[in-house]
């Protein structure tokens, strides 16, 4: 056996899962799809005596349409999001982001909740979800609470979830009328590798002018990053001067660091290039 022995606990409800986490505390870890956790345990980089399996709780993998958006269950797989007609129609950039991850087998296994709770700084789904204004539902000993994704990522591999809390679903609100979104990923190594950098954007236009511009980046800081302070773009004409000002703001908020996929210097330049590309693409796509 490659993996050190552990007990797989299979609760039938969220309450039962939380009780297990309360009982075993730091000896237990939540298991979603397992694409990261099981591999790290296999490599013996991590070990937990107990894994709390969320797959045994019915209904956590649903993708549901609601009046104001779409709710994606934490155990929905990447492949389910990628191929969902509802997601493809309402959030094509999101379907695309999930569709670019790893390979078809990984996407068949990896869960949406696991991806977010893992809080890696360069994953594909967080930037488009941030740009779309998504929020997650957490469930813990004190019941449910909603956390805007903007406040969810706290540090490298750290989230706003309490140790005994579970991520239950992520709600993605429909885009405002006239809204359009984009996700651009840049890979420095092979095409199915983690991105060096990911840029998501959402633009709402009204009579040729900007009504709202939102940007979010992956790989550009220790956490996925929502760009603040773009409210001034409202009612502005989207011209090269506006794009330059946006780039300056992005520049001050990102804090990339050198890794296998590029140096800090390189990522800063790529961020400029891809944010520019994203804004231009959002602007030109609209007639």
């Amino acid at each position: 056996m490659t993996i050190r022995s552990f007990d797989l606990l299979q609760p039938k409800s969220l309450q039962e899962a939380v009780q297990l986490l309360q009982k075993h505390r730091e000896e237990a870890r939540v298991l979603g799809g397992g694409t990261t956790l099981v591999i790290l345990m296999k490599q013996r980089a991590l070990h937990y005596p107990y894994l709390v399996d969320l797959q045994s709780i019915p209904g956590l993998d649903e993708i549901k349409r609601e009046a104001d958006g779409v709710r994606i269950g934490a155990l929905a797989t990447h492949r389910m999001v990628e191929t969902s007609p509802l997601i493809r129609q309402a959030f094509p950039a999101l379907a695309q982001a999930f569709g670019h991850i790893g390979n078809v087998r990984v996407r068949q296994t990896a869960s949406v909740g696991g991806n977010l709770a893992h809080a890696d700084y360069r994953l594909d789904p967080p930037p488009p979800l941030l740009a779309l204004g998504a929020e997650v539902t957490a469930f813990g000993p004190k019941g449910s609470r909603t956390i805007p994704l903007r406040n969810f990522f706290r540090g490298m591999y750290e989230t706003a979830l309490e140790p005994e809390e579970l991520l239950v679903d992520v709600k993605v609100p429909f885009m405002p009328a006239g809204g359009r979104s984009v996700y651009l990923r840049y890979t420095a190594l092979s095409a199915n590798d983690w991105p060096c950098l990911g840029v998501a954007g959402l633009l709402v236009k009204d009579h040729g002018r900007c009504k709202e511009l939102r940007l979010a980046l992956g790989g550009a800081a220790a956490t996925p990053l929502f760009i603040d302070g773009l409210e001034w773009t409202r009612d502005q004409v989207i011209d090269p001067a506006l794009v330059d000002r946006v780039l300056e703001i992005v520049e001050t908020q990102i804090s990339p660091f050198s890794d296998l996929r590029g140096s800090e210097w390189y990522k800063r330049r790529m961020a400029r290039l891809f944010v520019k590309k994203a804004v231009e693409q959002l602007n030109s796509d609209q007639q």
Partner: protein
Amino acid sequence: MNREITLRVNNRAETIQIDDAETLLEVLRDRLKLWSVRESCGVGACGSCTVLLDGHPVSSCFLLAARAGSCEITTLEGLGDGFKLDSIQEAFVEQRALQCAYCTPGFVLSVKALLDETPNPTDEEIREYLAGNLCRCAGYADILRAVRAAQEKRSGTVTRS
């Protein structure tokens, strides 16, 4: 923790004792002696250990066997009937889409899942779907030809020798 599970593999039910920490690959290979399931990279990147769960391709090297009890598992051994090859296997042989053949079971199962999902894939769809299966003999051109040949065999429009 030890547990007894019943795995449904290639239309047979197999009841065995496993440890929670055993991967599906370990159980299929070491216990059920299904040698077509092969470990290579060990992290889901290469496709050698591909099996189908309810018809969908997955990497068995990092799936816990304890979680696979509710699924129908198909390995390469489940494709032919022991005497006659599946049309995809025939296409791989005829197009010489294998050299060392280590990666072939994974490719054949991935192609089966692809053609079951998308009977008439575009070249781009084929390449995208198979991007996660690696062949270090670099037989990709032959493999792509085999996919087309398998597709034709399945739709029954062209018979190739």
